[in-house]
């Protein structure tokens, strides 16, 4: 998958953000290239201070990049004037905040109607019934006339979601929407988001909680203002975010012609391969030189090659499928060894991933001898 599909719904191109502080300049985002398709349900994850909120502030237009450009649909929101942006945002984006940010002096119903009022959406007579419909949809119709303070935190957040839907925007952006809620309520909120995603809304959720991120269909990881390669994150979840980022920066992108064998050579001695496009067939060569396709590795799956000197028996062969080229990310054996030494806590899991995890893709009942070969 390319990070910048020209027809993506949301595109960030070379976006950087530098905050000037009294302690000096602070780079919150470093040359980010990222895109989201319509209907995606995405979590943006990162530790506190990693730049995830800054990233979505770029998307919502709440903040502006120091350099780079943000496109949403046909709109180039970078460079829009504040007032223009406000109206655009009101109509195209629903924003949900960690602390709900319902206006405390307005009832839940009025809060829900406010975006329609501010953006002159729907005829005034329609607004109330639409807001009530939205509240009914999220299960808050009974609370419509209450002030936010009379609701629980979860209910307030649900009301904030209803408000974000007021102008029927195609995109909903939520910054730590469950950060202030207990886990059961958080589950419920995520269910609402999931159902919205099923209805075709593009949902971007910022969170630092990996368990919540699992509910989403795509996870974007950010550390120190830089994106972690999504395949790296998927393949090596045992690494810390900075380690993942390091791997992201270390891996090289390689392409293989259809049917070509992916074998160790002088350049690619050994290490870890992450499939990013196409499929990699795992072949087993028998004593009579017969080959058998043991598995087909999809994008997001990975495998490793051993140092040619270490091959003592015929074992597995990896080959690009015949339907098209195959893209992989390659982490060199040297880099892998360094990673193992630098991340001792993650070492055994990493070793397992590097030399054994690909076997998970193989049919059950694979000879244990095979697997031993790789360890």
């Amino acid at each position, binding site marked *: 998958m390319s990070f910048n599909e020209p027809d993506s719904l949301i595109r960030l191109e070379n976006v950087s953000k530098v905050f000037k502080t*009294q302690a000096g300049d602070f780079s919150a985002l470093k040359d980010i290239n990222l895109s989201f398709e319509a209907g995606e349900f995405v979590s943006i994850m990162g530790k506190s201070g990693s730049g995830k909120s800054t990233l979505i*502030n770029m998307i*919502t237009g*709440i*903040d502006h990049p120091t350099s780079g450009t943000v496109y949403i649909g046909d709109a180039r929101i970078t460079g829009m004037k*504040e*007032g223009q942006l*406000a*109206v655009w*945002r*009101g*109509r195209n984006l629903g*924003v949900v*905040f960690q*602390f709900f*940010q319902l*206006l*405390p*002096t*307005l*009832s839940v119903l*009025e*809060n829900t*109607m*406010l*975006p329609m*009022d*501010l*953006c002159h959406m729907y005829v*005034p007579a329609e607004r*109330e019934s639409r807001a009530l419909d939205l509240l009914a949809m999220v299960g808050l119709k009974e609370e419509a006339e209450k002030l936010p303070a009379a609701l629980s935190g979860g209910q307030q957040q649900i009301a904030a979601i209803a*408000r974000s839907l*007021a*102008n029927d925007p195609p995109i909903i952006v939520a910054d730590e929407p469950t950060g202030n809620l207990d886990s059961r309520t958080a589950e419920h909120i995520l269910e609402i988001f999931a159902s919205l995603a099923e209805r075709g809304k593009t949902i971007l959720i910022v969170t630092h909680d990996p368990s919540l991120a699992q509910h989403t269909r795509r996870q974007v990881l950010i550390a120190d203002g830089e994106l972690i390669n999504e395949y790296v994150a998927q393949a090596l979840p045992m690494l810390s975010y900075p380690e993942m980022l390091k791997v992201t920066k270390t891996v090289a992108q390689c392409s293989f012609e259809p049917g070509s064998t992916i074998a160790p050579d002088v350049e690619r001695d050994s290490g870890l391969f992450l499939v990013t496009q196409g499929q990699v067939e795992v072949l087993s060569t028998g004593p009579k030189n017969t080959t058998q396709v043991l598995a087909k590795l999809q994008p997001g799956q990975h495998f490793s090659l051993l140092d040619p000197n270490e091959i003592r028996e015929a074992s597995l062969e990896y080959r690009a499928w015949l339907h098209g080229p195959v893209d992989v990310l390659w982490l060199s054996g040297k880099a892998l060894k360094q990673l193992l030494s630098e991340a001792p806590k993650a070492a055994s899991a990493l070793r397992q991933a590097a030399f054994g995890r690909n076997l998970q893709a193989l049919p059950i009942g694979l000879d244990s001898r095979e697997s031993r070969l790789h360890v």
Partner: protein
Amino acid sequence: MFRPRWSKVLADLWSNKVRSLLVIASIAIGLFAVGMIASMNLILMQDMQTSYGAIHPANILINSSLFTSDLVDNIRHKPGVAQAQGESTFSLRVQTEPGAWSPIDFKAIPNIGEAGVNQLHLLSGSFPADHELVVDQYKFPDLNAKVGDMLTVELPSGKTRLIRLAGMISDQTIGATGGGGFFIAPLQAYVPLTTADWLEQPKDQMNQLMVTTQNGQNDLTHLRQVANQLTKDVENSGRTVYSSSVRSSNDHPNRVYVQAITSVLYFLGLLVVFLSAFLITNTLSALLNQQVQQIGVMKTLGATRNQIMVIYMVLIFVFGMIAFFIAVPLAAQASNLLLQYLASRINMRLLGFRYVPLAIAMQLAIALIVPQAAAFIPILRGTSVSAVEAFSGYTQSKPPARRGWLDNLLKKFKRLSRAQILSLRNTFRNKGRLALTLITLTLGGAIFISTFNVQGSLSAYISRVGKYFMADVNLAMDRDYRINEVEKALKEIPGVGHIEAWAAARGEIVMPDGKAGDSVSILGPPVDSPLVNPIMLEGRWVVPGDQNAIVLGERFRQLFPNIKIGDTLRMKVNGESDKRSFVVVGFFQLAGNASGYLAYTTFDYLSELTHMNNRSVAFRIMSDRPNLTYAEQKALGEKIYAALKDKGYSISEVDEGNSLTQKTAGGLSMLTAFLLIMASLIAIVGSIGLTGTMSMNVMERTREIGVLRAIGASDGAVLSLVIVEGVLIGFISWVFGTLLAFPISLLLNNAITMALFGAPSAFTFTPTGVVVWLVVVMVLSVLASVMPARNAARLTIREVLAYE
């Protein structure tokens, strides 16, 4: 259903009632002050003119030898004359309490209830029938009597009569004849002309002619022309004219006081508007500061800056309108109360309570404009906060990166506790707000202090005026007596010390075109008299050897703007037909425009001129002890009166030396009272401002207070944290206020004395105001901080730390 954005306006108004009240109060106070001041001014000017004009005040007043009603009838038919009326004026004494007598001026008027000129307005009782009198309301309380009581009056022969007090009236013309004006006039009594002979006055004879003209009532040149003609007519009828004066129909005798009050009120009114604008700015910027996050939310929901600005402008409009509807009736009522207080003191009649459209229009304009103008910058700043700034909060006051001058200063005070240092630092944290609060309190304090200084200056001025009347007792005889005889009689009275005989005469100015001008009181003290200590504006006082030298009061300069030292002034003295020339050698300051035409020459010259060789009608007597009080002077006066009466002297008047200062002080006390009312208003504005500032500071530091609580700050510590800050602000404002009080006192003092006396008076700075304001501002500061401090102390840690 309301559109949500307008619901927000209403809800914002309603949800934080304390804050809303603070904003509304700060606007309302400004509107109230302006409304009250404008209503008062407009009603004062209008009612004074209307009610004075309505009594048909005399345009021409001629004092002459006795005449009968024939002359009045004759004059009534002269060209240009609308109404003519004669009256007999004389002075007697009335018993105010057993053994105590006061001078009382009588006017005996034909058809007293239906007079065509100088009409009296009956306030209670009825117009007097024969052997009855009515008394003017101003000095009525001095009588210690009520309508229907019998009063004892002493007649010229020494006999007494009981006369029934039939009613209380108001006579707006008191003081119109000059010679000291309304405030120093004695009790004024009015009887039918038919009662005059019962009071030992010539039967059916009058000595004062009052005329209103058909037109040009406010044209002094025209009036003087008519007056000259009438004077001739009176003279041609064989009477001697002693004096004549003219006065326009809109020139109420106390107009200068109204002008003085007006000028003070405008000055203070402007300041109050200025102050409340600061207050509104302060309150609204805090309000906007608290709304920053909501502004961010609205922006995120699609609100444009203009939409948000309109929301807050509407909110402020609503604040302004609520304040307007509160302030308008309050201002009208307050102005009515003050007017009633004033009206009886400056002898004018009010035409009734009413709303003044112009005042309401001014209030409306201010309600619409000032809050919007004051809020404009805060709104602009608040709404220009970008959504990200609104959420991150990094536009709010940033903590300093380096230690500032204050910290370095505080390090030197090693005894201060951490909490005290925190208070001190907090004080200077939001410098913009501190500055606005300080400006409000400083100005308020400066004006407060200034009112005391003005009062001090006025008192100093009055006591200065007293230097012209330094004798303990002023004695006026009904006729002239040999000086050495009177002196001998006086010296026999125990307690009498220094005695001086003064010459006195009435002059009539001869205008450059030869026509008769205003009357002048000419006094001739001995040249080395220690009983006059004049304030010279220019030139010199009379010196031994002066012949026709004359020193004029400042009012002559109004009459003759180009008059200078060395010029010649021609006057007819005591109604003689010869015109005398006087050389002007100096100008002295007395009581400015409020005083009549007064001139001093030498005793010798004036005695000679009035053919009074070794004789006199006026004596100045000092006690053999210095510094007599008013009561002691009064007692000495009584003693002298009784002793001389015994010896058969015919005494016209015995006056205590301090009576003038006493009475003038009474006249000026209402000005001071006024200033104090204004100062209190300003103090209130200031304290509301301080309360607002402290509340906002506390609101902004809720989280910080929570942290302090969490690390063990007691209720007392949190309370003192806030109160110390409030008191510190109060104290700083007191220091600045004291300094600023110098120029403000000077301005205010000049404004008042220019209006009152036509000349700036000496400026005095009294410490009273400084001390009183220190106490007031400290109390206000504590009060203003207590409520926010209590709120702060009441917050629980959970509340504050959850505050987001």
